[in-house]
């Protein structure tokens, strides 16, 4: 059994085989593997006995359920209006410069992915940045770079 199969089966054991388990299982896979591979989605479909297209459809609906490979650290900068007015563009440009990737891309070492996100609910403290599950409000270009440098030093 592949690593992904083992992971999916463990998640299904934990959450159950009903249709309602689809979301927590998909979230569990993303937490471990950072994205939903074709193999993972097929395995989820098989385990929950639902159609593979249905799993893909659900995954594609949610921005946080990626279906393309992502880096170990997924950076999401809020792109909606409050953060835009608070200067999210400068933050994105700085990160893009530092990581040498454009929005939507992943660094060659597979460590960072740079994405934009819709409203993260921190309008009063924009611009806001998310690294995996960690929130960084009221960032500046410099702060953003420092935070990412901090992550870069991690394993």
């Amino acid at each position, binding site marked *: 059994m592949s690593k992904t199969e083992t992971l999916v089966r463990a998640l299904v054991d934990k959450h159950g085989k009903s249709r309602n388990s689809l979301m927590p299982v998909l979230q569990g896979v993303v937490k471990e593997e950072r994205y939903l591979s*074709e193999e993972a989605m097929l395995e989820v479909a098989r385990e929950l006995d639902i159609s593979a297209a*249905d799993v893909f*459809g659900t995954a594609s609906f949610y921005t946080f359920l990626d279906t393309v490979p992502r880096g170990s650290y997924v950076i999401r900068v809020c792109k909606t209006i409050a953060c835009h007015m608070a200067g999210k563009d400068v933050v994105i440009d700085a990160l893009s410069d530092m990581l040498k990737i454009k929005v939507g891309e992943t660094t060659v070492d597979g460590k960072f992915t740079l994405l934009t996100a819709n409203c993260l609910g921190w309008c009063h403290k924009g611009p806001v940045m998310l690294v995996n599950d960690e929130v960084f409000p009221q960032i500046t270009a410099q702060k953003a770079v420092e935070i990412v440098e901090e992550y870069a030093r991690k394993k």
Partner: protein
Amino acid sequence: MSNYMVNLKINNIPVSVPEGSTIVQAANKLNFRIPTLCFHPDLSVAGNCRVCVVEITGARALAAACAMPVAEGMEVFTNSAKVRTARKHVIELLLSEHNADCTKCFKNGHCELQELAAEYRVGDHVFLDLVKASDKILDISSPSIQKDNSKCIRCQRCVRTCEELQAVGALAVACKGDHQRITTFMDKSLHNVVCTNCGQCINRCPTGALVERNYMEEVWDHINNPFKHVVVQTAPAVRIGLGEDLGLEPGHRVTGKLVSALKHIGFDSVLDTDFTADLTIMEEGTELLTRLKKAIVDKDETVTLPMTTSCSPGWIKFIEHTFPELLPNVSTCKSPQQMFGALAKTYYAQKKGLDPKNIVSVSIMPCTAKKFEANRPEMRASGYQDVDYVLTTRELAMMIKQAGIEFTKLDDMHYDSIMGEGTGAAVIFGATGGVMEAALRTAYEIVTGREVPFNNLNITPVRGMEGVREATITITGTRPEWSFLEGVEMKVAVAHGLVNAKELMTAVRDQKASYHFIEVMACPGGCLGGGGQPIPTSADIREKRAQAIYAEDEGLPIRKSHENPEVVQIYKDFLGEPLGHRSHALLHTHYKPRKRY
């Protein structure tokens, strides 16, 4: 539905309908038509297209009449100024995301969106055109179905059809907002996913987003080629469906006119799939009796029972994907279409002194999966592609119109010979339960020497529109060579619509039900409700088509497959005996498991 009646007013006219009815249903009772797009009588309610909006006194917003249940004292207006403006805007908004390439669209003249646009006289470019260039890339990977996202209005009838009626789930809704689209797993092409090619989605698509791959031009080219001998076969369900596309009411039998029209179009020989349907009964009936003998007399444990039918190519692809472990249960018989194809380029060619390479074999089918079936690598027993082109009932109706034939005024004509003779048993292949009934009529008689013990040969327990039906026939008074079947209770089951087939086969797989013989038809109602039949479809229309099928059966002089004189002849002249060497080579095949996920 509840017995409790709810009183309301629609356009100031009082009406009383059962509790739980929708506004659309109540309005229908008063003959007020409310337009719908995402609504379909065979499917669950979605309420997403908003074309059916109506005004309810006291309500804050307009309501979707297809989804809104009636309430006591409700006052509904189906045609107020507010409603008309909103509805027109809804249609215009749908059109802003629709590739309105109407004149070149296959659905031109048969499109529900086009009809509404005409009815509401939509403005010219009221909203910006938002059709994405990438959506205009057609998916023509499948030989059966063509998918055009640029014409999709995301009503999701196809998604509901694929899931609710067929339990296939090849199509799903992906993404959201302006990115929302109907797609397959990982946006793969239709040919590479679990799609069974049944075409039920086509029957319900209100636009040209899902249509059959059409081969009319290719067929015209061959008809016009003097060096080609073009033979055509017509499936049982075509003769009771075709009229609907040519100005007749559902349930009209047009067999004689169908033959006339095909001759007018210029086919060299107009033949009948009914002939090979009868042949299928001989082969499949013998196969079943052989399996029973091996199981009961020889105690052969490798024999697989229950045996299932194999006529429906949608069912075959479904079982390949969904129950690959049950493939040994499937009869090895090819479908009547493919038996016909294999014989057209061998037996027919010999008898007529034709070189098979100059024969073009066309079939008219109520089915889109038949297009896929004809292209299967297994279907080249004659040394050529056995069936070259498959046209749906709808495509034939178009060709008849193109040929300038006034269909309703045609005289009735008879099928040509050879391979043009069919019995009533073959005609009922077009209805769910029909293959079962035809097989029982023949098998019972082979075994006992007597006709099936049902009034006028009508085996009513296997008829009807119940999703899964069961019947038991006790065999008594057997002939000596079949004495091992004396007293055996033959248990049979019939399923139509793949959602029902899945339920039945799951029970078989889990050994929760035991049968000897199972008939499965992929489409609701059987072939009469096939993906290639005239649009629209509903339970009521399918019921009328079924009545026509059974009327056609009763009207035929011969109603048992083994009495078909051409079938008797072919065994004498060519095939030898059922399951014989030649039958095996030409009329039987095996299928392979496919990935479900």
